[in-house]
């Protein structure tokens, strides 16, 4: 089953073409990587999928629903979770609240019930706390629930950001450079971790990464972007030997 389809997506920043004729087909359960040099338009694609930017042209469909034209929270509520290249936690709030906030769309009670703490409020709040606690336990963050997010060490902040994205209860998870700032040892752990959450939460994952070790190690398909255009797409082995990819990454062939 195809989960996410992007057809002929174009995005312009003024006169600059950030993404040109982007096409994507992501099967449910797949783990796909997007690679490319800096400025290739990788994060822009995440922002287009999640509604932060509106595509200038083209269509993005998730489970049959057109995403272009929807707001980020509407798209997120369709069960698309994401993390950010530079961690964007709610820094001054507690670890628990960071995860609880992501339950907004699932919390089923009205403003009036919130104002008077009546009706569905109590049951729903308890459910959210239980679920947030369950997630924190899975991610081994439960003992830090009351801690302010900004006080967490870098690695734990990355982990918390994934926990927060999973609180959306996503079908599709978008990871924007999850290995940024990690040493080779940590990257090995992260690779295992991504494989594990993928199985545990039955996720389809789309990830952006510069670390070739991670991309080649776990992605089933890889898409290569350069200057907003798709250079190549295929399984890791094919990508590694694609002359166009080598050119984009390493420059043109020997001079002279």
């Amino acid at each position, binding site marked *: 089953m195809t989960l996410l389809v992007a057809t002929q997506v174009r995005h312009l920043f003024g006169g600059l073409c950030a993404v040109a004729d982007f096409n994507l087909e992501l099967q449910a359960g797949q783990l796909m990587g997007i690679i490319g040099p800096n400025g290739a338009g990788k994060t822009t694609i995440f922002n287009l999928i*999640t509604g*932060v930017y509106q595509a200038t042209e083209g269509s993005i469909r998730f489970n049959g629903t057109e995403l272009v034209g929807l*707001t*980020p*929270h509407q798209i*997120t*509520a369709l069960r698309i979770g*994401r993390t*950010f290249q530079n961690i*964007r*936690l*709610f*820094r*001054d*709030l*507690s670890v*628990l*609240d960071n995860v*609880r*906030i*992501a*339950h*907004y*769309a*699932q*919390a089923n*009670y009205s*403003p009036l019930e*919130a*104002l*008077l*703490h009546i009706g569905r*409020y*109590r049951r729903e*709040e*308890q459910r*959210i*706390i239980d679920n*947030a*606690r369950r997630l*924190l336990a899975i991610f081994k963050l*439960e*003992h*830090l*629930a*009351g801690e302010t997010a900004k006080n967490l060490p870098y690695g734990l902040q990355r982990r918390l950001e994934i926990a*927060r994205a999973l*609180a*959306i209860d996503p079908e599709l998870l978008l990871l924007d450079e999850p290995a940024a700032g990690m040493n080779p040892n940590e990257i090995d752990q992260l690779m295992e971790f991504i494989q594990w959450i993928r199985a545990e939460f039955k996720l389809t994952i789309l990830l952006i990464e510069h670390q070739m070790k991670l991309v080649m190690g776990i992605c089933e398909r890889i898409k290569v972007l350069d200057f907003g255009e798709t250079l190549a797409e295929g399984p890791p082995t094919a990508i590694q030997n694609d002359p166009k990819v080598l050119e984009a990454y390493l420059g043109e062939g020997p001079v002279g």
Partner: protein
Amino acid sequence: MNTVLKDHWSKLLEQAWLVPVLLLIGFGLAFAIPEYGWLNKYIQLVLMYIGINIILTVSLNLVNGYMGEFSLAHAGFMAVGAYTAALLTMKVLPVAAYPALFPLAVLAGGMVAAIMGLIVAVPSFKIRGDYLAIITLAFLMIVKSVIENIDYIGGPRGIPGIKRLTTLPWVFFWTVATVWMIRNFVYSKYGRGVLSIREDEIASDLMSVNTKRVKFLAFMLSSFCAGVAGALFAHLLQFISPRVFDIIKTTDVLIMVYLGGIASIGGSILGATVYTALMELLRPSTMAALLDWLPELIFDPLNHYIIQNLGVWRMVIMPLLLVLVMLYWPRGMMGQREFRGFIPRRDREAHRRLNDLGEKP
């Protein structure tokens, strides 16, 4: 010994009956004080001002503190509530025969102010910070000049002769009701949405928070409470004019918010109480009455040179206090902290039980 006391104290604070009992005592006092004349009329008046200022401070804190937007429109919402309620009690509701209709007028004042709150919420979708401050300031000026130009409601002369319907029990009731609602709102998904908007609006939207809806609700609730405070204020002062609700009034509330500390209901209550009492102390008549016991030799020059000039100095002290608080005490009395009693038990336990788990070896 000390730890035993502390233990008892924290156990006492945990009791579910504590808050209802305290409220009951408060209500009893609010009825008994004017009934039996336990405190003189002036102190009763100050108590009512404190209540009204608590409503204003807690509600402004929702927007400026919890949400991190900078609104200057609070006095405008207060004016809308005051005028709506005053017109209702003077021209529509037969309050002379049925004083029990007064809460309807207060509620209507809050409702109309809440609708005005929607108007201010819209620009906040696109802009933040200084720019929103300027727009809300413009709103405040528009409200003022609209009132000044409607002759039916007295224009710049205002409305005199409003019935004095605000009593200590009513102030107590509305203070508790509005603070309770704001506290409930803060500890709900909408309140967490408000906090996440302050932290990172885009991330908040991407975590499924409907930021527009949350802003609408927060502005509406905040201006509703300001309207309620305005209605109570009008029926206490018995005279309102556009000049009462100018930028000075907003500044007053801002000082109370920052003195008490942002994003804290307990802080706002403390800030409003301390500031209102302080401003009353700085009145020449109050200060003179307080220092009356001093020997004449000291009192007379003190009175002549300082106390009688306090009226002027109040206006210097007030903004100076704001500057000093911002510079040296940006957290205020309890910025981003809260009295334990105000945090719902469920929330406290959710944070604490997990902490306890971690403390095990």
